[in-house]
């Protein structure tokens, strides 16, 4: 039986789905907001409480925190948790988006709408030198583009506003070196990460004391998995960028990746004609660097169903991870989030 992404489903996959979908032996839960009758918290309640604890701890212990807002699903969850952590107050920090100018147009529209709806202070920073030099993924390649328009731009923004703590939505299940990064991750005044010199994190006690010039990257979603993120978005009804849902979009196929033609800056190769295909994105970044997948999943349950069957991890769509085994660890040491 053909599946929506064109791959044939084999018996093993079906068995997996069968085991996933079989009715639970435990009774159905109370609403997520309230405690279960036995006061046993569910996995999402425990994750939510831990993240809120981290958000509050940073606000209490640092002078000038900021939340990195990348517009993706993880940022959506992190922002939602911040709204909860400080309610009825607004989160006492601004959002910062590092705009490479190559994000999907729908992402930018969603970003501005979200900030307006929630009444939050949104800072947008673009590397002015990079902009002046016309740095872009098509002309300079993904490595230079990422270095100048993301890593350098991020450092500029943190320095410019004097932020001493920045929340990021990274999860430990995304990548091997992240699995060993602390929730409070210290950076030198040069924004470098030293994986050999991390502070132990015991119980729920975080040591947020910084040396002069140091800043902290804080990852409140460290212990969430991709599945947890989707389940939480579903349960809490959190708005996400429509690009996550399947729709007919113009794409070209390059090096096995489906690249969406989001604007006319995309140079087409001779004979290359964008095709309308029903696609969606599992992860969002700069449009020329983000591959779409064929999909019919146009609702959250459909996305989650697809995820449960997927045998390809989400970062595969990202071109920057493929430059050798230790790629992410190197980028992080250089100051990448």
């Amino acid at each position, binding site marked *: 039986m053909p599946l929506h992404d064109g791959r044939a489903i084999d018996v093993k996959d079906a068995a997996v789905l069968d085991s996933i979908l079989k*009715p639970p032996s435990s009774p159905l839960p109370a609403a997520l*907001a309230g405690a279960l009758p036995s006061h046993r918290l569910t996995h999402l309640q425990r994750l939510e409480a831990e993240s809120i604890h981290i958000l509050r701890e940073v606000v209490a212990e640092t002078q000038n925190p900021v939340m990195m807002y990348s517009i993706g699903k993880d940022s959506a969850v992190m922002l939602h948790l911040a709204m909860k952590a400080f309610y009825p107050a607004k989160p006492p920090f601004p959002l910062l988006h590092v705009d490479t100018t190559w994000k999907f147009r729908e992402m930018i529209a969603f970003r501005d709408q979200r900030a307006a709806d929630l009444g939050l202070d949104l800072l947008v920073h673009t590397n002015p030198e990079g902009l002046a030099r016309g740095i872009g993924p098509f002309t300079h390649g993904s490595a230079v583009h990422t270095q100048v328009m993301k890593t350098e731009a991020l450092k500029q923004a943190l320095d410019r506003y004097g932020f001493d703590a920045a929340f990021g939505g990274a999860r430990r299940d995304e990548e091997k070196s992240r699995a*060993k990064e602390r929730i409070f991750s210290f950076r030198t005044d040069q924004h470098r990460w030293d994986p050999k010199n991390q502070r*132990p994190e015991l119980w729920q006690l975080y040591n947020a004391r910084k040396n002069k010039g140091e800043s902290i990257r804080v990852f409140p979603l460290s212990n969430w998995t991709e599945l947890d993120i989707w389940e939480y978005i579903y349960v809490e009804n959190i708005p996400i960028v429509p690009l996550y849902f399947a729709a007919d979009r113009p794409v070209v196929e390059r090096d096995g990746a489906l690249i969406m033609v989001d604007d006319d800056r995309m140079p087409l190769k001779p004979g290359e004609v964008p095709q309308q295909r029903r696609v969606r994105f599992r992860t969002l970044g700069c449009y020329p660097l983000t591959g779409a997948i064929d999909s019919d999943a146009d609702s959250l349950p459909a996305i989650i169903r697809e995820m449960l069957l997927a045998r390809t991890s989400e970062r595969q769509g990202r071109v920057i991870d493929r430059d050798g085994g230790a790629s992410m660890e190197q980028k992080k040491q250089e100051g990448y989030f």
Partner: protein
Amino acid sequence: MAPDTLPSTGEAGVSEIERYLAAQQSKSLLRFITCGSVDDGKSTLIGRLLYDSKMLFEDQLSALEADSRKVGTQGGDLDFALLVDGLSAEREQGITIDVAYRFFNTDQRKFIVADTPGHEQYTRNMVTGASTADLAIILIDARKGVLPQTRRHSFLVSLLGIRKIVLAVNKMDLMGYDQAVFERVVAEYRAFARQLDLTDIQAIPLSALKGDNVTTLTGAMPWYQGPTLIGHLETVAVTDLRANDPFRLPVQWVNRPNLDFRGYAGTIAAGTVRPGDRIRVLPSGQESRVARIVTHDGDLDVAAAGQSVTLTLTDEIDISRGDIISALDGAAEVADQMEATLVWMSEAPLLPGRPYILKVGAKSVPATVATLKHKINVNTLEQLATKTLSLNEVGLATLSLDQPVAFDVYRHNRDTGGFILIDRLTNETVAAGLIRSAIVRTVPWQILDVDKRARSQMKGQRPRVLWFTGLSGAGKSTIANLVEKKLHAHGRHTMLLDGDNVRQGLNRNLGFTDADRVENVRRVAEVSKLMVDAGLIVLVSFISPYRAERRMARELLGPGEFLEVFVDTPLSVAEGRDVKGLYAKARAGKLPNFTGIDSPYEPPESPDVRIDTQAMTAEQAANHIFTLLSRFDEDADLVDGAAI
């Protein structure tokens, strides 16, 4: 379900997913750590758990296959350890050097695994991983049995308060899946674990490499009838017992969006809370009631341990970050000195007397290590005298804090009883601490800002009771008067309670029956205690004939605060003096129940001071008592350093 009935993305498939998602919401979370020696196959086991629970994606698998061929240790077969050993430096060394967290899900549960290294020098990482774990897997190589490392891991697991143990006897394939080998290892381990109070042990024979008994029982060990490793992890009870304890909310952040709202945000560390509950704020001791449990999703009727909430109270009281909002019954401890186990985590050794920052709950306060009682050899559990602690050493210490803080002992609550020490210059986390007990127990039932200590410090003296006992006419009041004059002349603040005087006022309604004598002494003892709280030196001159009542008075007061002075005058001498003519009246039958005549006097068996009035004058006796008092205070100073 056969492949041809697999739900499509149409209506039916989606509703099935919705049912699945509803079920996911009752899924629980189990956090565990894996502990083993370098070669026990820990990373392999975790890689196997990820692989067998289908948590690996195609691209990760193909990367694993490529890596296994390139740097694998399994001759080209899948080397699961490569999945887990994340940092490039350790991939080259072939060992795990830090704590790594891994995630996998089954139908029943979500799991967070802390992979902690087995190297001796990395005790700190294991303690870090264990601090958040509900369960520990102790991995043993079936070929080697219980090793010193096994003992160390088990000691640390027990120290950190993990009670549930899985004893995973690995590499059974290399021992021919022999039941006798398994049973020998398990018996050896159980015998050792009993010393550590670890009794909830599930032993499972495994081969992580081959996959035996990880997710499925294999035919290789038909003699084993227990659960698989996954089967056990999925079903072991992880009820959060803290929900049954008295309520604790360490205040993380005071939420003041406008003048009309003041909320106290934090993660509930124990118990449950409902609007209307009476609470006490510690360390201040102020009382109030819970008004609302505020969340973004609306107010709650009840919240329990583990939830992050915001409370409002019915009264406007002063609460700051670091305070604990506590149940009225069973409130948290408050003290500025404590005994704690320290695990040292820094290259720079512990320096007793140096101020560190102590962070417990949301409270940070300067603290010094006052004394180090001993360190513990983590392999043999032997206690050794020491002057310092070095990296990865564990010891028992007393700490002295700049101000009283609220906490619980670690045994009762990890989140309010565990602390870290931070170096004030490098800002490094240098130690993990587990509170064993409060040393100076500051009574938490009243506002503590001005307490006995503060009052007595202002007077520059050590408050106590000098309890003069003896027969009527023995000379108690005469001597007590002289002692009070001396103390007064030396600038001490005193009060003399004399039996005859008190009987004219406070105890006017009491006679001389046994019951009234007991009540007489009880009242005087309580009054003395209040006066000691006021910082006074109290001289009590009472016949107080019964040992039991004098003991009651002693027990009302703190250690060293009650000094029993036996004014020892034989009955014949006292009766011979008969200053007030009372003995004559008693002998004439006009004073019933007179001590020494028709009511007994029980002389003290071991008084703090004995005055033989036949051997010294009243003046000499008073000098003697005054000298002894000064000496007692000096001795006490040596003990706790407080000024008289």
